């Protein structure tokens, strides 16, 4: 029932992208996002699209599965397109009907903005698709490390993140189970008025909250029982290390930066 929400979930693998260091992937995404906003003409967008396609190939994931990560934002993209086509004015008038006009600038903006959204979502979904939650949070923790000196609880934030990520599938499964159990007891979640449907959520929400709290309590106990006492003095089982892959990522970033900087108008 809820399986299609798990889009963007980590798919284990051994591709170039999987084995690159999470830190370089994170930094690269920040750079890429900036470049997406700097791009402003056909050539620069073409470069970014081509680059995204190459990344897709490097991840060795099936293209259809990757494109599914766009599914939740499809509506948003469509909405932006429609809005821009009708509202942004300027340039040649392509079509006129009463006071409605579709003009050159509107079409241009519509295409560019939707590309922007699509590219941003795709490139960040590569991160979650190819990086395990543990690596991801460790990468974050290391990147944010310097802020620890000024009193930011970096380790705690990273731990909270990894626990949250870790429990998404668990809670999803739990929700699925509770929905099924209540459906078996005759609850009907897909019909009735809006108010009635909202009321129908109570038999799901309450058991879910109770189990989430129970799990949190058990987890805290289990961690303490195994000697957890915060990040101080804690060592790592697998240390992150940069490799030739990360040099490639860095080079790609610099090249992309110059290409976009050169060609943008």
């Amino acid at each position, binding site marked *: 029932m809820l*399986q299609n929400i798990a889009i963007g979930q980590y*798919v284990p693998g051994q591709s170039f992208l999987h084995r690159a260091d999470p830190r370089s992937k994170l930094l690269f995404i920040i750079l890429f996002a900036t470049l997406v906003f700097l791009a402003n003409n056909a050539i620069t967008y073409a470069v970014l699209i081509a680059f995204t396609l190459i990344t897709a190939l490097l991840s060795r*994931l*099936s293209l*259809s*599965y990757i494109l599914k990560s766009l599914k939740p934002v499809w509506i948003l993209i469509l909405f932006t397109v429609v809005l821009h086509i009708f509202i942004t004015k300027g340039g040649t008038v392509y079509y006129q009907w009463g006071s409605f006009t579709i003009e050159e600038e509107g079409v241009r903006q519509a295409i560019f903005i939707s590309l922007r959204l699509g590219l941003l979502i795709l490139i960040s979904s590569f991160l979650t698709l190819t990086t395990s939650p543990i690596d991801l949070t460790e990468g974050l923790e290391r990147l944010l490390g310097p802020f620890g000196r000024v009193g930011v609880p970096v380790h705690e934030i990273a731990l909270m993140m990894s626990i949250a990520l870790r429990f998404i599938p668990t809670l999803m499964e*739990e929700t699925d*189970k*509770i929905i*099924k*159990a*209540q*459906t*078996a*007891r*005759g*609850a*009907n979640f897909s019909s009735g008025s809006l108010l009635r449907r909202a009321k129908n959520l*109570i*038999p799901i929400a*309450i*058991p879910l909250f*109770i*189990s989430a709290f129970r799990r949190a309590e058990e987890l805290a106990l289990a961690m303490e029982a195994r000697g957890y006492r915060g990040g101080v003095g804690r060592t790592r089982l697998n240390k992150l290390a940069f490799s030739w892959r990360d040099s490639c990522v860095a080079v790609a970033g610099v090249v992309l930066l110059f290409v976009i900087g050169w060609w943008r108008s």
Partner: protein
Amino acid sequence: MQITFDKVSHIYGKGTPFERLALQEISLTIPSGSFVGIIGQTGSGKSTLIQHLNGLLSPSSGRIQLGDVEITSSKRMPHVRRRDIGLVFQYPEHQLFEETVAKDVSFGPLNFDLPVEMVESRTRESLEVVGLDYEAIKDRSPFQLSGGQMRRVAIAGVLAMQPKVLVLDEPTAGLDPAGRKAILEGIYRIHREQGLTTLLVTHSMEEAASYADYLLVMADGKVALQGPPREVFEQVDLLKQLSLDVPETVTLVSRMNQSLPDNEHLPHSLYREEELIDHLLKRLSVPKER
């Protein structure tokens, strides 16, 4: 209600990298009124199988016949017919949500628009079936009860719908021996009294042996063995291969037979504890004069 599976397969996450074949062309027939034990290791497809019985999962291919309702990949179960099949999930106490026990138990019957007076009498009845005192417990919050009591309330919530088929997924998991016995005895009693068709998923061969009159052994999404318990328990080697055990009674009988002369062998049909004890006592009391 007779239940028939005809080449039913189920695939989870079809079309994603997480695709998994959970049921493989399962065919079986469960006659009306039987008490079926479903045994198998974790991940053998037991839970997937029973979720098909209620239309919670639809088969990826194949056909299921529940009484006069047919379910296929394109034909879903009509909502009202869910009432006929009471499905008790693992750890059913996790589904409790109401303020009072009585309200929670009546959730099911009310969903099927039964008249209020009828719901109340059913709530009372089903709480008593699981061995709880209606008057004492009806106004308490389900979350103040002990684990065993919560489990019973949750089971009562399914019984209150008065299903024709009762499906229980490990109803005794995590309970103490007394609690186990009380719940199973209660279930067995209403199974007989109301002529239910009951399916009991369990890890315990002992439980299966004590109550079931038919056994399904699942392995890797297929039915590895099926038949009356006596026949299934004879396949000791196959069960061991599937990392399953035979009940201790069966082991005891075969160990005793090894040291008994051929004409005094104990029959293999003695896999129920009480029957075996009776039989042994009878033997012991017969004076050996020959």
